[in-house]
């Protein structure tokens, strides 16, 4: 069975090209600094402390340029202090070795205080990359060998994260199989209240990992045929109904339990088929492996789900449990981010802090809707509540989407 399946990928999965570790280079520290650092003397300092390189972004005579106070330093820690004097075109810089990012700074607008980052560099031919500059790449040479061996490459830290995330995905699939099993039992017993409760319990698991597992097609089916599309068979809803294939899956059960408010032979058929398909999914997903950018793209995909289907109230049209599934999407995205965070903190601590703060903001917003007396644990997303509160929730998610959208590129190009 597994031999003929294939994974439909909605996102471009980049070829990571991770083969070959590129010398011992570690980003030891990076962060914002005030004007104090900007006054550091330019030029290399061969011994004692970090070498200092001033990077100045200018637009003198209308040409945007990226100027380095020194283009050759000895191996060891190097601090780059970046000042955007007057270039509107350049808003980020990167230090690259063999096209992989060693260090960087973003949000470099004229008028803002200088910022710096420090990397421990081994000998090699680096590039200082300033997108937007007329000459956007400056050759940067590091001579000799770094004294201290770096501790743990960013890639190995990220690899730990992706392995942990793989375990998380499997745990959610296992929990979903159990949850859907309980739903089937309650439906088979004809107990509407118990079935509604079981629906609410089973619901969030798929939402936490949906973007990782929504690409499976059953053996023997074409990618365009929804009758072999596991995501359709499990998670289709009224708005995505393919008349040729009809109602299936968890929302077909939802429609009966919360819309018709009765269990009939059809409901039992939907629940039984759902249990079968969820088990198939668990089976198919067993070998799934993730690259760091898959986690970032997956998290972004879950937030797209929130914006497209939860805030609109479309996902849980009958049960109004949208906020509970919203929370599931956010929890899944946060898990993916948490597994990237230790690596991302080495690559771009500012970005890691921004994403972390925005996750906190989303959770704080969501917390206001928690209500243990309601099925699913959150206020029902009724049309009335949506009318008054949708904008607030959408804004919170937008604030998270913006920094999160930058993570995939960072971790994909990490050394």
């Amino acid at each position, binding site marked *: 069975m597994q031999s003929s399946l294939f994974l439909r990928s909605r996102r*471009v999965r*980049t070829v990571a090209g991770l083969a070959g570790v590129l010398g011992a280079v570690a980003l030891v520290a990076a962060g914002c600094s005030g004007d104090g650092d900007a006054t550091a003397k330019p030029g290399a300092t061969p011994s004692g402390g970090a070498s200092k390189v001033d990077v100045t972004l200018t*637009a003198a*005579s*209308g040409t945007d340029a990226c100027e380095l106070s020194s283009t050759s330093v000895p191996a060891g820690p190097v601090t780059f202090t970046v000042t955007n*004097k*007057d*270039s*509107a*075109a350049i*808003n980020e810089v990167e230090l*690259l070795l063999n*096209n992989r990012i060693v260090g960087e700074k973003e*949000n470099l*607008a*004229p*008028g*803002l205080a200088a910022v710096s980052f420090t990397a421990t560099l081994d000998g090699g031919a680096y*590039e200082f*990359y300033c*997108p*937007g500059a*007329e000459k*956007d*790449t400056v050759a940067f040479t590091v001579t000799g060998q770094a004294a201290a061996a770096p501790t743990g490459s960013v890639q190995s830290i990220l690899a730990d994260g992706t392995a942990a995330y793989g375990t998380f995905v499997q745990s959610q699939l296992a929990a979903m199989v159990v949850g859907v099993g309980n739903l089937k039992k309650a439906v088979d017993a004809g107990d509407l209240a118990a079935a509604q409760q079981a629906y609410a319990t089973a619901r969030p698991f798929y939402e936490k990992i949906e973007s990782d597992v929504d690409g499976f097609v059953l053996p023997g089916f074409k990618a365009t045929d929804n009758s072999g599309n596991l995501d359709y068979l499990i998670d289709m809803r009224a708005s995505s109904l393919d008349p040729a294939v009809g109602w299936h899956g968890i929302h077909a059960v939802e429609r009966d339990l919360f819309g018709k408010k009765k269990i009939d032979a059809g409901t039992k058929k939907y629940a039984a088929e759902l249990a079968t398909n969820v088990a198939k999914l668990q089976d198919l997903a067993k070998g799934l492996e993730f690259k760091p*950018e898959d986690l*970032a*793209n997956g998290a972004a995909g879950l937030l797209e789900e929130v914006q497209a289907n939860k805030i609109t109230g479309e996902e849980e049209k009958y049960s109004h449990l949208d906020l509970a599934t919203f929370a599931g999407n956010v929890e899944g995205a946060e898990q993916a981010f948490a597994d990237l965070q230790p690596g991302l903190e080495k690559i771009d601590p500012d970005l890691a802090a*921004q994403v972390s703060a*925005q996750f906190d903001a989303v959770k704080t917003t969501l917390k206001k809707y928690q209500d243990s007396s309601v099925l699913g644990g959150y206020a029902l997303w009724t049309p009335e509540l949506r009318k008054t509160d949708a904008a607030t929730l959408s*804004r919170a998610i*937008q*604030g*998270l*989407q*913006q*920094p999160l*959208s*930058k993570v*995939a*590129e960072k971790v*994909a*190009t990490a050394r």
Partner: protein
Amino acid sequence: MNGYSHDDGRFSRRAFLGAGVGGLAVGALAGVGGTAWARSDGADAPAPSDGVPPATAYPFYGQAHQGGIATPQQRHAIFAAYDLTTTDPRGLQVLLARWSAAIAQFQRGRSLGAVEPTRASAVPTDTGEAADLEPSGLTVTIGLGPGVFDERFGLADRKPARFGPLPALPSERLDPKLTGGDLSLQACAEDPQVAYHAIRVLSRMAQGSAAVRWTVMGFGRASAGKGQSTPRNLMGFKDGTRNIKSDADLAQFVWHDGADQAWMKGGTYQVARKIQMNIENWDSDFIADQQAVFGRTKQEGAPLSGAHEFDVPDFAKKGADGEPAIPATSHVALAAHENNGGLKILRRSYNFTDGMNADGQINAGLLFIAYMNDPAAFVTLQTKLGQSDRLNEYIAHVGSGVFAVPPAPASGSYVGEALFS
């Protein structure tokens, strides 16, 4: 890797590539301030009556005032008001600095970074819909709402004395969802897609720091600037015949002298009102009444006391019936500076339409934008208009915002930087 080069056309928008760019725009691109197009008082270059060539690029840095105020009014506009969602003064600074740099790029006809990044996992920073369009005379004007000076940002002592939320005014029916805002952006261009692109990308950049509160898309200028023919509003009447057009009036009524807050010197205040028109009712009104409501003729735009558009209204002149030729409750009579102690404001309005409303009526009207060096000028005029203007029968003010507009930044700075120093 290095895919942002100018040669592949990704980073630069088409107009920047050289061919067909007029000398004026090149001058602007080269950072030569004070070109004829950059100034409303350019005596050496006649301002066009309707629009400027698509290659026109207004300089952003190093001007006395932000663009989009005394700039010859462009045909299209998007106005957006934002709520600040950050409470960190540094977050506000970074937003204003990044907005400023991006606007400088857009006004030159450039994109914000690569439209098509070379790394497969990169998300494009520019949304791309203006990639092949010329600068189109774009200006983007940044305004700061009263909320910038509340307890969140530690800037209370920088609030100009005359600045604050507008008081409730007679006859207004403000919708809270269309009212207020901590920041404003007014993007004006000859091509609506260029203006839209600017607001879209700037709004996206703001995510996490500020969120759009309300927005209006204006089509067709509905005010006349210096040297421009007088356009018509959606009621079919000429609008802006007596608008501020001279540098002397700009200096007296529009530009802030910085007396109480030095950072506002060369700045101004912006009042934006979304004015709904009862289009169907207006369209069924007979012509004599329409003219009495405005105090002008419809075709020529002449005051009812005269024969030509630019005849000075004579409010004392009586008609055959012994009543004033220009009715005292007409819009012109109530708004005229002669009847308001000499008070003038610079109007820079646009027509708008939002399709149909929920009641099956045309949802359209005037995006009224005005500039003045004291918001009290608008309050004085609108209080009077709201009390007795016959036009109130056919309009309703449904959206409102007031913003302090700092001067243009010097090269290497950003709009509002002086506020934080």
